[in-house]
């Protein structure tokens, strides 16, 4: 038995094998995610779906996260406006471009990236916990016994709902961030509403880039969380693990996707 616990600790045959094990696990994981994405998109293109389930998921994912997202992004808008005003005053006393710069950054990036992080927590954990509980209580196997494809029945409605409603929620929450920034700028730094609300620096490219990010992040949240939920095993502990992996996986995917999309945006969407 001491041997058994010893092999648990050093799980690889060699040092190289140990180093490569997480890499190959990561590659398998990403391959699995793309397979699930492929299945989901194929099923969507075939066009038959559960109307009731879709509407229910849109309500759960969209309406039920709206208040939470508006609160978090409201605070974000206030914090960023406050910090950038304090810091830019150290360089130049003129705050007329404060709003314009903030709004450009928000549209191009922050409404999507900073908003998607709490959204991943809220929506991702919800999807994984719900599907994971169905797996450990054998409801997913029961679905299979009824000849219902779990991907079609569980993943497709959540994927569509998260992509559409998630993007909509992020846009609304971004608008709330602008409003809260405007209130702080006016209340603390005496920037009047009209000067703050300056969209002149926002280009069509910025809007396109921002919306692309939102759609990509929301789709990633849905696919990763659904995959984590479906691969749940082992009772109540398993559901907890699946939820954890969903939140961490989607948050990390958002950061990595943001890096790549922003990088591409820098070269191909000039501002």
């Amino acid at each position, binding site marked *: *038995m*001491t041997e*058994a*616990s010893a092999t648990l600790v050093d799980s690889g045959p060699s040092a190289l094998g140990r180093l490569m094990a997480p890499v190959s696990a990561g590659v398998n994981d990403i391959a699995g995610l793309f397979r699930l994405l492929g299945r989901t998109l194929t099923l969507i293109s075939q066009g038959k779906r559960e109307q009731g389930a879709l509407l229910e998921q849109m309500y759960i994912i969209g309406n039920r996260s709206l208040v939470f997202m508006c609160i978090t992004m409201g605070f974000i808008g206030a914090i960023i406006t406050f910090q950038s005003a304090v810091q830019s005053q150290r360089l130049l006393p003129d705050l007329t471009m404060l709003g314009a710069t903030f709004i450009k950054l928000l549209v191009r990036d922050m409404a999507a990236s900073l908003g998607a992080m709490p959204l991943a927590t809220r929506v991702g954990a919800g999807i994984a916990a719900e599907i994971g509980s169905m797996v450990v209580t054998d409801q997913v196997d029961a679905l299979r016994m009824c000849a219902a494809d779990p991907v079609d029945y569980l993943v497709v409605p959540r994927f569509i709902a998260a992509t559409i409603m998630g993007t909509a929620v992020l846009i609304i929450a971004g608008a709330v961030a602008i409003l809260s920034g405007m209130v702080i700028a006016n209340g603390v730094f005496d920037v009047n509403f009209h000067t703050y609300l300056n969209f002149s620096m926002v280009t069509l490219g910025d809007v396109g880039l921002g919306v692309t990010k939102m759609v990509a992040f929301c789709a990633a949240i849905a696919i990763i969380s659904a995959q984590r939920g479906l691969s749940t095993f082992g009772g109540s*502990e398993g559901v907890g693990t699946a939820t954890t992996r969903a939140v961490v996986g989607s948050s990390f995917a958002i950061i990595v996707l943001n890096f790549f999309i922003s990088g591409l945006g820098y070269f191909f969407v000039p501002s």
Partner: protein
Amino acid sequence: MPIVFENIHKAFGDKVILDGVDFTIEDGECFFIVGASGAGKSVMIKHLIGLLRPDQGEIYLDGEEVSRLSEHALYPVRKKCAMVFQNATLFDSMTCAENVALPLRKHTGRSQRESLVAARERLAQVHMEDFADSYPAELGDGMKKRVAIARALTLDPRYVLFDEPTTSLDPVSARRTDAVIRTLADELGVTCVVVSHDLVSIFSIADRIAMLYKGHLRMLGTPTEFQNTSDPIVRQFMRGEAEGPMEV
């Protein structure tokens, strides 16, 4: 009179589980509480160490009323009255030896090293010394139950409560567990309170039996009295018959 239950009432929401139950458990006996699933057997013994509080009624342990004590004041009670849970409830993050060593380390002021040595001795008493460094997830149900018994015995309690000790065990493990319980009562003079509906255990090791039915004490007596009873409900339960007056 070591353990006395007086007029215990307990309800969860609208669901009345115990509706006025009284009985007394004598020193050093092996006392069984039996009844159908959901009859409130486990609820009954959880009251004794303050894991649940009665809605009404009193519980005396060594003459001390324990049902109204604060969580902190219950600690001495729990040291002399150990409990073996239905699912063993070993801590998954620790090895068997660490599980058994935990109460020693927390309550006797011994170091981790000394506690682990003592824990191995305890595990040897239940023939589990070979699995001291295994984690609970690696063991079968019968083995976990034995480790849980070893953990319950580390502080030399005078009373041990067993919640369905033989449920979900194979027949051989179940009889071994019965033997451990009987040895405790016979050789160490420990009072064993066993919640069970395993008829074999009941008739092989019980000194006295209390049967709960619909929130009341239906019958209290020795195994022989239970076998010869004229109460149709008790007879049906004791013979394990599907047809009869008993409502579940």
